[in-house]
């Protein structure tokens, strides 16, 4: 592994070692949400089948991958901006490609660790096993992660281009998709035109397919392939938009002014 990529991973590791809020960001929200959704699922199980109620937990765990994956990319950068250290990092020989590879590796590790912890807690607290997604699980998880990277890269481009006044997007951009992407309920209950919009996003196919797998054991390979294709498109668009906005930010001087 490139020494520079390793150094960025080291920076994130050191930061988490010293920062309680980073640990809170990573684990606390996931844990609290797991408790809420877990008990809600138990409550709903009284009125419907236990399995159907448990799909809420499937949605929650996969959604958490999206949240963690995107936050991991964007928050790392925000923390360096707040510390006035980003310009130091970008005046080293580090390339943008190495920078993103490091962010993606860190995002993957963080997501794997937190999701494993949450899945284990869900198993012991609610008897819920994410392994019921069988061989579809890694494909669902990777697709959600790919989309989180696309969202993270896009938000970073906006941050570099327009400055920290847009930092609220770090937490709020993907949340917009939560009501329409079929995270906790099938998109069939949405109005027709919203369903059509929902199908533009790869995560919709994954959330829909994961629910079916959880209830029936059937893994919808077509949905997985469609999600991969859409993710490839979204990642390409995200990288292109980042490159365009980064170049523009260097031209307007906004990138150099990011740290105030």
């Amino acid at each position, binding site marked *: 592994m490139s020494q520079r990529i390793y150094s*960025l991973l080291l920076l994130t590791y050191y930061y988490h070692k010293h920062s309680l809020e980073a640990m809170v960001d990573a684990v606390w929200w996931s844990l609290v949400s797991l408790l809420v959704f877990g008990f809600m699922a138990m409550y709903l199980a009284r009125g419907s089948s236990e399995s159907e109620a448990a799909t809420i937990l499937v949605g929650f765990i996969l959604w958490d991958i999206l949240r963690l994956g995107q936050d991991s990319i964007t928050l790392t950068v925000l923390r*360096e901006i707040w*510390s006035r*250290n980003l*310009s130091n990092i970008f005046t*080293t*020989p580090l390339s943008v490609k190495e920078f993103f590879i490091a962010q993606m590796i860190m995002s993957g590790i963080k997501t794997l660790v937190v999701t494993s912890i949450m899945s284990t807690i869900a198993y012991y607290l609610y008897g819920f096993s994410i392994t019921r997604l069988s061989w579809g699980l890694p494909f669902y998880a990777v697709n959600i992660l790919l989309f989180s990277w696309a969202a993270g890269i896009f938000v970073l481009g906006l941050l570099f281009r327009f400055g920290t006044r847009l930092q609220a997007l770090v937490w709020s951009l993907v949340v917009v998709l939560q009501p329409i992407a079929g995270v906790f309920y099938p998109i069939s209950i949405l109005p027709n035109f919203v369903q059509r919009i929902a199908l533009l996003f790869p995560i919709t196919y994954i959330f829909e397919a994961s629910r079916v797998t959880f209830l029936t054991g059937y893994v919808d390979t077509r949905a997985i392939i469609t999600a991969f294709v859409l993710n490839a498109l979204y990642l390409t668009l995200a990288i292109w938009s980042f490159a365009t906005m980064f170049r523009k930010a260097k031209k*307007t*001087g906004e990138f150099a002014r990011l740290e105030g």
Partner: protein
Amino acid sequence: MANVLYVSRLLKSFGSFTAVNRISFSIGEGEVVGFLGPNGAGKTTTIQMLLGLTEPTDGSIHYFGKNFADHRSYCLSRINISSAFNTLQGRITVYENLRVFAGLYNVPNPVKRIAELSERLELRGLLNKVYKDLSAGQKTRVNLVKSLLNNPRLLLMDEPTASLDPDIADKALTFIESLRKEHNVSILFTSHNMNEVTRICDRVIFLDKGNIVAEDTPLGLTKLVKFATLRLTFDGNKKPIIEYGAEEGLTLHFPRTQVVEFTIEEQNIPKVIFGLSKKGVYMTDIDTQKPRLEQVFLDIARGGLT
């Protein structure tokens, strides 16, 4: 002397505003060049372009003969910056920060390198402290260590001694001087402390409103200021001095009863002394205060030299 940096017709415009107006300059191997100018002169924008943080509108930057735009990684691995205005990651320790940057610069044997530099800049005791808990002066020293990790051939120093106490600032300057002497490092040095600039710079570039308005040795630049201050201590009545001052149009200032000060063109000093003697003024002491770099800076900032 080979150029480590060559800047050619560098232009940066933001809409209709020109921050840097087609400036050209170079820095030779082992040369220390002061980069001065009032606020808004274009220094920061130039430094940002030299570091690749801002893209020039036109013109070129070459490091070690290579075009920066085409060889970014090669160039950045051989230069570094120490700025009083950037900080490192505040939440982690000094050692951890330095370890990260040593890796980003691909420094071989980083542990040894960090130990060597920390020893020289008296930072050993701070290595395990969290960066945000350091004083401003300590942070500046850590930034200096960070800037030396990759053994740079060119160092950009943006007010490196700001917030250092005089003793540590002097040590830092001595260290910078030794860097040049022992390792032939070239330095682009910005500071508002003209004594420091006079002490360590071989050459000074003055920037104003995006243009280079003067470029010379510190001594050569002071010669641009034609005026000197004459301070005379005299015996007896000050009336003849006041009369002579009125005749010659001098603005006199009497800081003490028997002392007069005024500013005149350097070439007129003998004439004035002779004229006062003729008026019967008996001078017991004559002190000429020659212009310093500070005066050049003030004159440029106030539009006097441009």
